[in-house]
């Protein structure tokens, strides 16, 4: 699907927007996922993710998607699997050192990134090596879970600040400035059973 891959890079800006949108939906769905259980949705979601991303980006399901930092050009298609390319072997015309018939994945990446809004800055950050134990798992779900967790944490932080700002009320009427962690909908459902 080399042609579609090239298309995705040419339209990196649009895909960036679609991606932010998908991410938002995934975060909104967090309570649903939590209720069903992240373990149980992992397989079906990973299947969908794999289907969509394989078609568009020749996705290899590394489980650590960084497309929005690589100009929508999947770095797992680089024969050296660089996460911070391109290497020093790029051929004239921007072709790959190892597979001369293919455009260098990272030449495309910098190109795509220059068309993106946040991507142009994101590609300048140094990426860590791939965590091979995550191979095959869903990146989308991981992002959804992480973002939702971050939102929960920030809510808790604000609750703490409130309780600190109204110490007397907190002492007299704990319910007015509660500190305890709210059980997630999933655990509530469990308790009801």
């Amino acid at each position, binding site marked *: 699907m080399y042609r579609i891959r090239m298309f995705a890079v040419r339209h990196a800006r649009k895909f960036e927007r679609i991606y932010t949108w998908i991410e938002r939906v995934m975060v909104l769905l967090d309570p649903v996922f939590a209720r069903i259980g992240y373990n149980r949705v992992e397989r079906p979601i990973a299947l969908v993710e794999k289907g969509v991303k394989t078609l568009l980006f020749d996705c290899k399901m590394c489980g650590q998607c960084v497309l929005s930092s690589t100009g929508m050009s999947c770095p797992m298609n680089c024969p050296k699997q660089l996460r*911070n390319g391109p290497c020093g072997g790029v051929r004239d015309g921007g072709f790959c050192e190892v597979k001369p018939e293919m455009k260098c994945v990272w030449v495309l990446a910098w190109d795509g990134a220059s068309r993106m809004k946040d991507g142009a800055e994101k590609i300048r950050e140094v990426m860590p090596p791939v965590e091979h134990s995550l191979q095959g798992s869903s990146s989308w779900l991981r992002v959804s879970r992480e973002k939702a967790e971050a939102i929960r944490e920030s809510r808790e932080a604000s609750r703490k600040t409130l309780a600190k700002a109204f110490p007397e009320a907190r002492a007299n009427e704990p319910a007015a400035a509660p500190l305890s962690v709210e059980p997630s909908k999933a655990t509530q459902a469990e308790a009801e059973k």
Partner: protein
Amino acid sequence: MTNTNSQNTDLLAYTKPPEGHVSHSRLERVLRSGRFAVTAELNPPDSADAEDVYQAAQPLGEVADAINATDASGANCHMSSIGICALLTRSGYSPVYQISCRDRNRIAIQGDVLGAAALGVSNVLCLTGDGVGVGDQPGAKPVFDFDSLSLLRTIRTMRDEGVFLSGRKITRPPQLFLGAAENPCIEPHEWRPDRLIKKIDAGAEFIQTNYIYDIPLFEAFMARVRDAGADKRVFIIAGVGPLASAKAARWMRSNVPGIHIPDHIIARMEATENPSVTGKQICIELIQQLRKIKGVAGVHIMAYRREQLVSSIVLDSGVLAERRKGKAR
């Protein structure tokens, strides 16, 4: 601590590096003091004889602040870089330990970094490495667990935070001057300066470039590097090498990844009666031109299988004489 009987401060016991330095490396001292540095590449022997390493090192040691021990460059099997480094530090040379990400994973590399530092190595050059396909054993499994940037960041973390990438503590962190390679004359020209900056962010303190034969192209690169202020954040050592003949130059251009030689250089090699002399002369001229480019902190000489030329190339170029006169970069 005083060191009376040896010139080689790299082999000092485990002491703190000088103020403002990260290692005991001579290369680091030369660069930080503003002198024009000279480094040279050693061609690794295909033998198990230490004498072969010493013979190759001798003509380089006369003029170089550090000797690069290559790590199976071009994916060809030779004596290992860590083995060469061990031999070199033993006899008082200051090596640059090259690490390629092609052949070893993160477990092996982090272990080797500690081993190298314990052997007295104080310079490391982090490379991605050529693909296995161009080498003498194309059926080998390419590893590429790290890339050069994640490798740089890892070694910097080991050095400055005193931990492995896993977070486990290192009781005595390695004191290493960190280097990376750059290939300014290769596509994508537009993004090469950006990637250089990324390497500095990852931890690179010096850069050794691949062969520069195209001065205008390199100048354009350097202009953009200077505009970004990157030449103030890293020492850039420009790579050069004597060509053996027009045929060899053409072969290199089409068979060795990442080599750019402009046609006019090849034409000059073709026109000459004595290619060896002309190749050397071109190299000397390149050094003199590079020396004048603002932001170039030194030269790196890669004389494939022609080590004996290195010292006369450097001496004839005059860069060391200028240095002795106290002329700064």
